[in-house]
């Protein structure tokens, strides 16, 4: 992969910068000069990328071969990697809102934490967040009926409110704790929670194979989720192995062979989704 490095010239801007141009799709095929001239939005002003970043390295002819490394904390930059289709972005610190929103392919790695709406409505690709995620990770934008439609998000830390709202397909793995309303309106897709799951999990979940798997403690389930059985699903073995091998979550293997309590709901919407909670001990 050809490496393009963006070094922030400023830090902690109070008015965030909108820079959806930080994406392999936009950068690839341009000259360094053209990359420097790319448009970014600061409040109501239109400026160029080079006013905020030093641009170095190489530009690839096509997005598949493009790696962009953002060297430093950019919690003030929104839309990094939004709508990207291929290539790779690495952020060496925190990132702002809407990271990787609506992306369809490629990979984003954030070494710090991300703001709200990361991976919102994404349809493919991989987002890996070493820190925490804000609210509405992989969610549906307001007024839109469907959230994440494919791809994978792995947050090593905790995730905020309404993670995976309206999720249709794809996989979200939360290494830490999950805030209330995780998996609300889910209508397909899978969410793994390794830490503590807060209440209102899967609120108004419809079905379509929606599945929330809790490997940690669960604060409380809604009264509209009904217990039906305790079993050791065979597919879980494959899932847990995949988490361990593909995402490097070694501790997932500890749960292989463990029994799960299965709850179905959300009856409030006549839904038929499932929440599996690992049996203690």
């Amino acid at each position, binding site marked *: 992969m050809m490496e393009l490095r963006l070094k922030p010239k400023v830090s902690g801007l109070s008015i965030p910068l909108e820079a959806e141009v930080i994406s392999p799709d936009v950068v690839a095929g341009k000259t360094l000069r053209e990359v420097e001239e790319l448009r970014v939005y600061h*409040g109501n002003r239109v400026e160029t990328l080079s006013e905020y970043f030093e641009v170095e390295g190489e530009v690839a002819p096509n997005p598949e071969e493009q790696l962009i490394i953002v060297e430093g904390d950019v919690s003030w930059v929104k839309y990094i990697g939004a709508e990207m289709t291929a290539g790779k972005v690495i952020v060496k610190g925190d990132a702002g809102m809407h990271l990787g929103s609506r992306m369809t392919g490629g990979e984003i790695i954030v070494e710090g934490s991300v703001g709200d709406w990361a991976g919102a409505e994404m349809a493919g690709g991989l987002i890996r967040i070493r820190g925490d995620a804000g*609210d509405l990770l992989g969610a549906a*934008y*307001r007024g839109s009926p469907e959230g994440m439609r494919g791809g994978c998000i792995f947050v090593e830390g905790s995730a905020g409110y*309404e993670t995976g709202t309206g999720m249709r397909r794809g996989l979200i793995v939360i290494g830490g704790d999950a805030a209330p309303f995780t998996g609300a309106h889910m209508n397909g897709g899978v969410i793994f929670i390794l830490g503590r799951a807060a209440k209102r999990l899967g*609120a*108004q979940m419809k079905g379509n194979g929606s599945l929330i798997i809790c490997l940690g403690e669960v604060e409380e389930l809604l009264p509209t989720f009904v*217990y039906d059985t305790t079993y050791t699903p065979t597919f879980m073995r494959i899932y847990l192995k995949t988490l361990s091998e593909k995402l490097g979550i070694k501790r997932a293997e500890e749960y292989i062979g463990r029994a799960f309590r299965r709850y179905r709901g959300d*009856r*409030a919407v006549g839904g038929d989704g499932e929440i599996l909670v690992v049996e203690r001990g």
Partner: protein
Amino acid sequence: MPVYRSVVCPFCGCLCDDLEVTVEDNRIVKVRNGCAISTSKFLHHHENRVEKPLIDGESATLEEAVKEAAEILKSARRPLIYGLSSTECGAIAKAIELAELIGGVIDNTASVCHGPTILALQTLGESKCTLGTVRNRADLIIYWGCNPLEAHLRHLTRYSAMARGLYTSGGRKDRYVVAVDVRETRMKRVADLFVKVKPGGDYELLSALRAVVRGYGLDVDEVSGVPRDVILELAERMKKSRFGAIFFGLGLTQSEGRHMNIEAAIGLVADLNHHTKFVLIPMRGHYNVAGANTVTTWQTGYPYAVDFSRGYPRYNPGEYTAVDLLSRGEADAALIIASDPVAHLPYKAARRLAEIPTIVLDPKRSMTSMIGRVVIPTAAAGIEAEGTAYRMDGIPIRLKKLMEPPEGVLPDAEILSLIIEEVMG
């Protein structure tokens, strides 16, 4: 001594339109039919006024103040326009025009009251009717997380529980009244059934009701402190009613769960419509907050939290809402119209308003006008100026002008037009 009849009261979302106001020497001396809040506000209208335009606390001419305001807004990168719930629709339309012109963010006070309601309506739709229909037809009325006895004093007698209508000529005795709240309010005495729900437990209770209405059993003994029998009975009563209405307030929109609570309530009402006619109406507080949402929607496509920084409207509550924009320290200038955010917003947001150049348009002195860099007095809509306002059920009503504003004082819309002209240069 002019006596104005059928005056519309500009003090809460009920917009009662049957008041009689007597004006003597350009001063309101008598109010009939108004509730205690309304009467007191009308009679004290002349007090506590902003008398002259101010720049940095010093009096200035209107031209100077408008010029200064325009300068502030033009040089800002992330200007915020906020308030708008206590002014008329013409002013709101002008404020939106200005927001677009300066590439700013425009938000109204719905973002701190019924914003969650709107979010939920956008997700699920809404089953609604006018207050007149409730008055004429509803035989089951549920007040959820609201207390009209303290906030909308004439609601019960004019529109809901006690009102006599076409098919409810017996008034209160023709209706079954339920109140749901986290603590016992005075509504307990009005209601046939008072349901006390554990704080933060509304979502669970609404979900349980929905499941029961859908025909599922309930496997638990109680939900959020409410016994199963009560839930089963309430669900049954809802299904059997001829026409049911749920009124809800901040107890539901601003408690844990927020817009998800309203989604649950809307869902419940939608499900009930398989059995009978059921509606849901938010108890809007400020008299024209519904108008602020309506006008913003017809002009930008979105009801609040609209960002024009990229030249076209974008909408995202949580990102472009005033509280968030201010708390994160993003807004670098603000124009506050007919609202007192310094008194009502969380400390961090209020502090930011004091740090940045803030322009305040208000008839009265307020905490916000005290921190304003530029303060411009305005004529109060519905008293000193005409205009249109939207009642809580979405009905537009024409406000009357009862008296002249103090000399040299203009209505919000005119001041905003002057600022727009100045910005355009």
